[in-house]
């Protein structure tokens, strides 16, 4: 459905934010995972017609996105990573305004759209409040509401769960899952659970390049038996860092749990664990770092 071929973007300061990104994204939820600065937002903006990439083509169905951004915009719902609001405008009015911008012209259609979305995103009770008074989670819900106006065929949500509390995040992901059945939804995030919970397909982006692409289950399966863990004292961490290439470290009950990637049993008290998507993600990052 959405095809990217050799999409490259170089910023004026020489930063190569995207390096020959080639992706084919089908209908349904698609997770784009990557650390901060991996080029996710640049890629999202390029797809959302906000930034013309220096090279490459982007096609959505029949639409050449770079040549005819106007056509894509008619089918697009976009939730930027970070956005502000106009002052002195209520949630209802702003949603109404966005509806007109998206071509929902007749007052009756607009009313239906706005009211449905306000209910759907649970903003109905605060619809008359000024957006500038909204907390981060409420603002994010408004963002998703506006992205859904006019039945978009391509929905891009960039880091949608950053700043949401767990409950809000849950509700938000539910909403996305509901929509994601019939259209293309690209979920860009650095939170592994978002992807593992929702997306039948995913890609990992790091240093502007696609490092990994596939279905999460298959990817997890491919690392099966290669992930090993050990619980160590915090003081030992530096020593382990030198000895092994650590995939991840986290604290548990005051001690440190380290994961490493190894085809064979590394011994030294490491035990095998079932790999999660997180281990896949981190091992990809480690490999990309190694390659660099």
């Amino acid at each position: 459905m959405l095809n990217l071929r050799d999409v490259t973007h170089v910023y004026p300061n020489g930063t190569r934010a995207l390096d020959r990104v080639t992706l084919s994204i089908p209908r349904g939820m698609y997770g784009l995972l990557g650390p901060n600065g991996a080029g996710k937002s640049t890629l999202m903006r390029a797809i959302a017609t906000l930034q013309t990439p220096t090279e490459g083509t982007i096609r959505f169905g029949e639409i050449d996105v770079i040549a005819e951004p106007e056509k894509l915009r008619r089918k697009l719902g976009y939730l930027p990573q970070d956005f502000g609001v106009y002052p002195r405008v209520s949630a209802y009015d702003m949603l109404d305004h966005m509806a007109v911008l998206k071509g929902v012209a007749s007052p009756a259609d607009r009313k239906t759209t706005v009211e449905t979305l306000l209910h759907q995103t649970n903003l109905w009770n605060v619809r008359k409040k000024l957006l500038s008074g909204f907390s981060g989670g409420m603002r994010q819900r408004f963002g998703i509401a506006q992205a859904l106006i006019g039945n978009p065929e391509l929905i891009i949500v960039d880091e949608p769960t950053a700043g949401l509390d767990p409950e809000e995040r849950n509700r938000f992901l539910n909403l996305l899952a509901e929509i994601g059945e019939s259209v293309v939804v690209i979920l860009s995030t650095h939170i592994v659970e978002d992807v593992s919970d929702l997306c039948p397909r995913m890609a990992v982006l790091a240093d502007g390049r696609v490092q990994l692409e596939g279905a999460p289950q298959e990817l997890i399966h491919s690392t099966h038996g290669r992930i090993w863990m050990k619980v160590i004292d915090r003081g030992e961490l530096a020593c382990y860092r030198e000895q092994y290439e650590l995939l991840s470290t986290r604290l548990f009950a005051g001690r440190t749990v380290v994961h490493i990637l190894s085809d064979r049993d590394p011994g030294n008290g490491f035990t095998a664990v079932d790999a999660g998507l997180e281990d896949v993600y981190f091992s990809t990052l480690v490999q990309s770092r190694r390659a660099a």
Partner: protein
Amino acid sequence: MFAKIARFECRYQLRNPLMWVTAAATFALFFVSMSVDGFELGSEGGLLENAAYATLRNYLMVSVFFIFATTSFVANVVIRDDETGFGPIVRSTRITKFEYLIGRFLGAFAIAGLCMLLVPLAIWLGSLMPWADPTTLGPNRLIDHLYGYFLLALPNILISSAVFFALATITRSMMATYLGVIGFVSGFFILQNAFGDRPQLETVVAVADPFGARALSDATRYWTVAERNVTLPDFTGALLYNRLLWIGISVVCLALAYAAYRFADQGTSKRERKKQKLAQRLSEETAVTGNGATSLPSPQHGHAALRALLWMRTRFEIQQVVLSPAFAVLMAWGLFVTFFVLITQRDPDGRPTYPTTLSMIPELEDAFSVIPLIIAIYYAGELVWRERDRRVHELVDAAPMPNWAYVVSKTLAMGLVLMATLLTTVVASVIVQLSLGYPDLELGKYLLWYVLPRTWDMLLLAALAVFVQAISPHKAVGWGIMMLFLIWQQLNTAIDHNLLNYGGTPDMPLSDLNGAGSFWKGAWTFRTYWGAFAILLLVAAHLLWRRGTEIRLKPRLARARRRLAGAPGWVAGAALLIFIATGAYAYYNTNILNEYRTRNASNDDAAEFEKRFWKYHDLPQPTIADVTLDIALYPEERRAVTKGRCRLRNLTARPITNIHVRLLDRDLELTSSTIAGTRLILNDAKYDYRIYRLDRPMQPGEERVLTFETRRRHRGFRNGSPNTRLVENGTFLSNEELMPVIGMNRAGTLQDRAMRRRYGLPEELPRPKLEDVSAAAKPCIGEGWTKADITVSTMANQTPIAPGRKVSDVRRGGRRIARFISEAPILIFFSVQSARYAEKHRRHAGVDLAVYYHPAHAWNVDRMLDALVASLDYYQAKFGPYPFDHVRIVEFPGYRRFAQAFAGTIPYSETYGFISDYQEPETIDHVTGVTAHELAHQYWAHQVVGADMEGEGMLSETLAQYSALMVVKKLRGEDQIRRYLQFELDRYLEGRANASADEPPLARVENQSYITHHKGALAMYLLQKRLGEDAINRALRNLLHRYKFQGAPYPRSLDFIAALRAEAKTSEEQALITDLFERITLYDLKVSQPTAVRRADGRWDVTVPVEAKKLDVHGRGAETETPLAERIEIGLFTAEPGRDVFDTSNVVLMERHPIRSGRQVLKFVTDRKPTYAGVDPYNFYIDRNSADNVLPVS
């Protein structure tokens, strides 16, 4: 630590774009004002550009403008940490509150002080520029700048920074701080105007003025140009106290700010708490599970949807502007100023007028000029950058809104907002009209002549600003560019063709008589022309619009060409066509139908003309002995044809070989001229100068006949100000606009002294000295006495008027034709008028008194007729018979503002008297005064005309002033005269302070009205007080008897002074005549602490200490004290003279007592207790401080 913080703050502020804009503007302003000619800031009326006084004024002015910048600097100091959320981090370091607050304040203050240092730098550099005119520059004196910088500017910056720093610290809000600034400035203006003109509060006002401007102007009031150029006022008195008081207030403000600032963490802000509450409320709802997203309506992208989108966007943009707090502040300020100006400033000379729509429009334009400018430029920046500033651009730009919708909706919104603000001021104006009881609302005129043109002009500016913002890398840069553009446009003297000057249009003068005439055509042609250009700019802005996250210009330029295809291309093409077509049409009008002349070209020509022809000025030339004119006016076509026949007579004692015939008006064309027995030996078409060689010289007494035909036609429109003399309704042409003049004279030469210097001409054309008896051969007006037979024809519905007895007045062939024959000799100094007039006649003493007026301007017609009756009675009784059978007061359009006397005819501007409002009985009756003055000219100019030499102005203007003053005295009583005298005194002292040339005594005055009119009135009044009215009138009668309608030699001022001396009986009176007319004498009379003590017998012992001084002034302004020994009035009153309630019953005592130089104490015993005592209480003497002549008695 403290110093480090201040230094950090300095460095921080150096990155503030506003600081750079302020600095650049300050530098540019002064650099240009110093070096470019014709652009003056603090200097005025002949002062050197870098005169001491001008320098001080510059520092004051710039420090007042600095308020806005310094406020932003210092308010930023306390507000930015809270805005960025960085505050808690900074405040948790070891820095103390004092270091944090005061260190930063000082850093910001230092930056403002540094910006101010650009003033001396710019002045110094500007004065060194090779293109600067050295004659308008004096030496740069360091001391002026030290005085201005340290005593005026720096304290002013400190004051504004400290006050608004305190406000910002207390309110923690930028908007509140700016509101405070506006309140501060407007409060200052209100107080100034409410109390500024009360002499008893003078010192209080001077000390209370936060900027010290009042103290400075009080300290230098009535200083002459010579003094202002080099003298600095003493730093004492009000000026010193003012500075001390305000520095004290600044320190208090800083202390307040320090005390009010809580350094400890402020806790969560109100906004934060509100957010939490809202979120909590939301989480209390039960979460509804979604019901699928499939049921939403689908979008359309047809025309209806686009219309809805455009409308929505426009409305939204309007809301964003109108609801923003800054807009409310701007509008409040604009309306405040508008109301203020409309209510108080409509009558600057104490001459209130009826609030006619056309008199309100210029006031509105004036009062509400800056606010629309700010709105256009400021909000253009806001609109272009709004999405980006609010970080909603990713939402909006990714929506399927077409690209054009940005520029179109934003420009539409700008236009509607601007129009609404202008309409608001119309409402304000109408409210003022109604509240003044003026019911005649002409809303159409407001709309056509104010709202539409102003909206259009502001939209042009907004379009430019939108374009500039579209290519600027930052909003502040765009604003800065627009500011520089505005400044450049103000200063620009090089480009004055409207085709090259963005938004430039010819003037569209307005008048009740003539409406907008045909002047709107030129104005709107250029508006269309620039409108088309603005559309091109907007198309360019559209093509370069920042959509998405790309903000660099280059990629957008690359993209622009692709975007041009389609509608933008068509719009641009159409706009380009209109631009070219209207440009060509405008060029045809301004440069082909009319002659295009730059300002410099006019001056070049005048200078060249003088160099070529001035040499002929004392050739003997014949005089027009009689003239027959047939003038056909076609006002609807703005055309006139004059056929004339002049009998020329050699009145000189020498034979004449050449006759010089020339035109003074470039719009006049001499289509034929012949003098029998001559041949044309010079025909200079450029300067319209012809010399005819007589085949046989004209002997003394011999006559020749000149026949000629002239045409004038005003076709199309010009680039500059349109000709307003021959118009559709209200034509007013003088003789030189209809016929040639004989011989070379001063007319048509350059007058401005600086300009003359630039062309290497002497500062002024030499005027014959008073002692040069031979100069008495020429009159100062016209060429000698003439008889006239003038036929004027015009449109059938207009009334033609020319000098002379009307012998016929018929309508024939759709035209109205009237013939006028002079019954007494007149001067070739007359006017012809034609308009649709109402007439009011009154027959008095055998004379037909008539007023020809615009039917809507009937208010003061009777007052004029009453004044004519009173004046005629006085003049006929005291001076001699009135020579004509008519007096005609004829209204003319308010394009110019004066009244003038021609033989039997008084053209009177509609804005000068006809719309004066005398419903308030206290108003000084200038209409009566002016009418009496102009009628007096029927004696003093049109019967006795002075010789063309020094002192000429005294024989016409001074005598007319005296005559009018006597009429007013007779009508109003002597006790009311003080207000008139005070008016004259103030005008004289202000005039001499601003005069560029040396001040002559009255006997040698030329045409400086501050001397002829204002000093003349004072001198003559005092003299008639001392010699007696009858003695003066006797002298005048003798003068009239001797010179009435006589040819050469024409009288000199000395002849009148001799007539006065013949009436003076004592040596004291002779000395007074010398002081008043042959010298410049100033007095300094004052009382100090007069007291009244009750005696045992119930009467009162009154002690009046008097200090007196008399000064002789020499032309350059140097003063020497001379001994005073004159008998001067001492007055004791029960009310203050000159006040509303004052009349004869308030006079307890009025006696003349000998007053010497120095201090003396006078004692009186009175029956009533006086509350006021004064020396020279009615201001008969010229005294620069007349306020201390009368003081309350304690």
